[in-house]
């Protein structure tokens, strides 16, 4: 008897869950975070990308959303491509800094219309190859790719064997480096650090010992303030020269970074959506906050507050009227 009641209650429980979730068709386009809107607060969920620049955007946006507009902010860190998927389903409301994902734009913005562009961040991103400035000063000709082979043995590590090491970072980053090394006939081995954290740690260790290194890196980035680096000139970028990934022979483009919103949030997100749409600042602003977070190890919240206290005229313009 007891068994039967247990089974019945289990069935009822499952039934109740199904009933709660709306018995009929489940709407897969709505996937709000279970932590959102807890205790009656209005919540905005922002996706944080793994690099500090994006964290700075989010930190300042979060501070203002919380203290000026009265929202609770939920942050989730997801890799770039999965973040687009999360955005289309409403698991996050906004991506604050995107470095260009043409395939995703086509799919979600143009075809499915579940994501809408949110305008410029105000920052232009650029990927390139860099050597530490202390090394470039001693060997000025290293800053042209044509001379890289001459220095290959100086960039050698135990990982790269008898070739020079070109250090690449996180697997989520856009990179053509393997193809570039091959197509430009360079005597280098691309070694993937596997994560930005590992790459930064390694760069800092090299810098401490004033060792030469060659690395994939990007601007704007706070690390330049700590470890000055000089870009190595690659063959000039021209529109379309990166069309065929296998034949690539040119530098990376300069990309004005973009914001993207969940379509539903953009329409019904009220003040938060308007505010995030207005949000735009300069590279210098972003770097200031990034450096406080990453180097001075301030909490993103404190770093945001420091910048906000100093620049009221800038952020007041973002508030919805």
């Amino acid at each position: 008897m007891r068994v039967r009641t247990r089974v019945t209650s289990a069935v009822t429980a499952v039934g109740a869950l199904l009933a709660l979730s709306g018995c009929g068709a489940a709407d897969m386009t709505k996937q709000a975070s279970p932590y959102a809107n807890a205790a009656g607060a209005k919540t905005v969920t922002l996706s944080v990308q793994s690099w500090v620049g994006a964290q700075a955007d989010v930190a300042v946006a979060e501070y203002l959303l919380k203290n000026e507009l009265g929202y609770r902010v939920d942050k989730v860190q997801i890799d770039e491509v999965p973040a687009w998927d999360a955005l289309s389903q409403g698991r996050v409301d906004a991506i604050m800094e995107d470095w260009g994902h043409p395939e995703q734009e086509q799919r979600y913005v143009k075809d499915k219309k579940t994501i809408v562009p949110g305008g410029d961040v105000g920052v232009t991103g650029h990927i390139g190859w860099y050597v530490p400035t202390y090394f470039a000063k001693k060997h000025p000709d290293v800053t042209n790719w044509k001379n890289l082979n001459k220095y290959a043995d100086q960039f050698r590590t135990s990982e790269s064997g008898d070739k020079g090491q070109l250090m690449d970072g996180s697997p989520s980053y856009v990179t053509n480096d393997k193809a570039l090394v091959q197509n430009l006939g360079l005597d280098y081995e691309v070694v993937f650090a596997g994560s930005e954290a590992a790459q930064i740690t390694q760069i800092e260790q090299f810098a401490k010992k004033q060792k030469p290194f060659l690395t994939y890196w990007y601007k704007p980035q706070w690390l330049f303030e700590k470890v000055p680096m000089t870009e190595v000139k690659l063959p000039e970028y021209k529109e379309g020269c990166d069309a065929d990934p296998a034949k690539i022979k040119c530098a990376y483009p300069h990309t004005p970074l973009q914001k993207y919103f969940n379509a539903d949030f953009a329409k019904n997100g009220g003040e938060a959506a308007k505010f995030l749409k207005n949000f735009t600042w300069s590279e210098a602003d972003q770097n200031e906050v990034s450096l406080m977070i990453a180097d001075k190890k301030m909490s993103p919240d404190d770093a945001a507050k420091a910048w906000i206290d100093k620049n009221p005229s800038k952020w007041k313009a973002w508030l919805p009227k």
Partner: protein
Amino acid sequence: MATATASSPVRDTGIGALLRHRAVGKLLLLAVAAAVVVPILNAKWASGAWPDALTVDLTEPLGKTTDWIIDNRDSHWLFTYFFGHISNAIVLSVRGVYLVLLAAGWAGVTAAAGLIAWRVAGVKLAVMAAASFAVCGLLGMWVPTMQTLALMIVAVLASVVLGLLLGLAGGLNDRIFRILRPVLDTMQVLPAYAYLLPFALVFGMGVPAAIIATVVYAAPPMARLTALGLRGADGGVMEAVSSLGATARQRLFSARLPLALKQLMLGVNQTIMMALSMAVIASVIGAGGLGDRVYQALSTVDVGQALAGGIPIVLLAVVLDRVTGAAGERMGAHVEDDSPLRGWRGWSIAAAVTVVAALAARFADRVDWPTGWVVNIAPSVNTAKDWMVDHLYTDVPVVGGTADWAAHFTTWVLNPVRDGLQGLPWWSVLLIVAALAWLIGTWQTALTAVAAMGAIGVLGVWNKSLDTLSQVLAGVAVTLVLGFAIGVAASRSARLERLLRPVLDVFQTMPQFVYLIPVVALFGIGRAPAVAAAVVYALPAVVRITTQGLRQVDAAAMESSRSLGATSWQQLRQVQLPLARPALLLALNQGVVLVLAVVVIGGLVGGGALGYDVVFGIAQGDLATGLVAGAAIVCLGLMLDRVTQPTERRAKKGA
């Protein structure tokens, strides 16, 4: 962790000689087979690398699958009427638990934790549980701790229910049991990273996918131990129950399950531990909570902040482990509890105190953890880490710095092993695997091992897998050397063992993301830090099993050897180690499994090869790269398991 249960084998020179004879026979047979097959293979595909003709490219079908899922997710009945409900139910349950925890406030939750621990495990653990929750608050991690707790409660409940059902089926039916075993093996060896992405695509980013991934990983020990407990039911008792005319269902509920209670409790305990170890990995797809804090701290290279997120995970793990462990022991012991607080009275007092605490905090308007009570440990941790790195990285007199060791290890060990393996003709690798597996097991194990290696070739990741294999072999070697040394020392000194216990606990439960940065800071990027991370993770289990194995060596044998005048060293070498051989073999097997489990983490610090591919797959939403690499890791695991596990299968990771 698993314990050594097999008894030591009886040494018989006759059988030994025969075995040796058999071994020669097997090798001869294999040599003959090779002599016939190899020339044919060589004539067809002359190069030493895995022939392209024998690979299957899965990029296109898997890419199409991804597209199909994304395009049909909002409309196809499979999603709207099935997967959608599952993920909605998960979100609702997590949300429900989370809201209850928030409503209880920090006071209510801490009180409840302490009181539950008191009821099931005694006063000492009650204090520990309450203190641990207080520490989570002190570290400024209250809200993320509650998010993780909500996730864990739902995931563990789901895993236990699923594990129980599978275990019941396997425990009552031999056929199902046989089918179940390889399925459970795969569920545990497949790196969680590899299936995070498909789950996220199907069930939605974040919590739903995270919970399902956790269940896949955490349910197997519950299923295994349930089946084991049911099968181990005492025959005499069962017969007695049947003779009383009980029906099959009555037999199950009145005899089998109660007899297996202790095993079931152990299963719950293992499930909780496995689920917690997924807390951080799940944050990669946006599950939130403590894991997300650790993951975000990683991106600013902030070890202190990562540690602040990692400590609550360790505390939760240790508290839950001890409490469920103690509960299991009490259930097994059947002690008569005759205190006035036994049974429902104790529980109702516990419930009342919890409610009072929660209400008190509410009226005092202190539901959230007070911001003034937060200690920021990050700056001092970072200073300590910087000091350590500055003084150990390089130019240490005599011994050299960690960076130099790493470079030497890479050049002298990792490179030759990798190049050696990759330089071998592909068929000879298969032959070696066949020979090793056959010598140690039966022709079936050899066949499985070879098939697993073959599958790797067919998947088109032959060279990468051999690179990973070389890292795993190096990691296992280092782990075993260190593990056996520490294990031997600990088995001889009870004090050392006591001192080691909390250290091993921390190493075992600390999320690997926390020590990635220190590892890179000390060893640079590359394969050496990947191996180091693997050693840190696998060492505790090896030390524990070794210590336990050596301790269990028959006291009489030790005594008699001492009376014969054997020195301590002779005793160890000639008595203890040979007698503890099964335990040492289990340690080897565990070492392999655990090192392999960290391959993906190694990908995050420059280990490259399969680990990087798995991480790449999730970062780029590339199902093909991630899944193929994940499958190759499973195959490697299968092969290594068959090659290191003599004939009879023993308890595996977690069961």
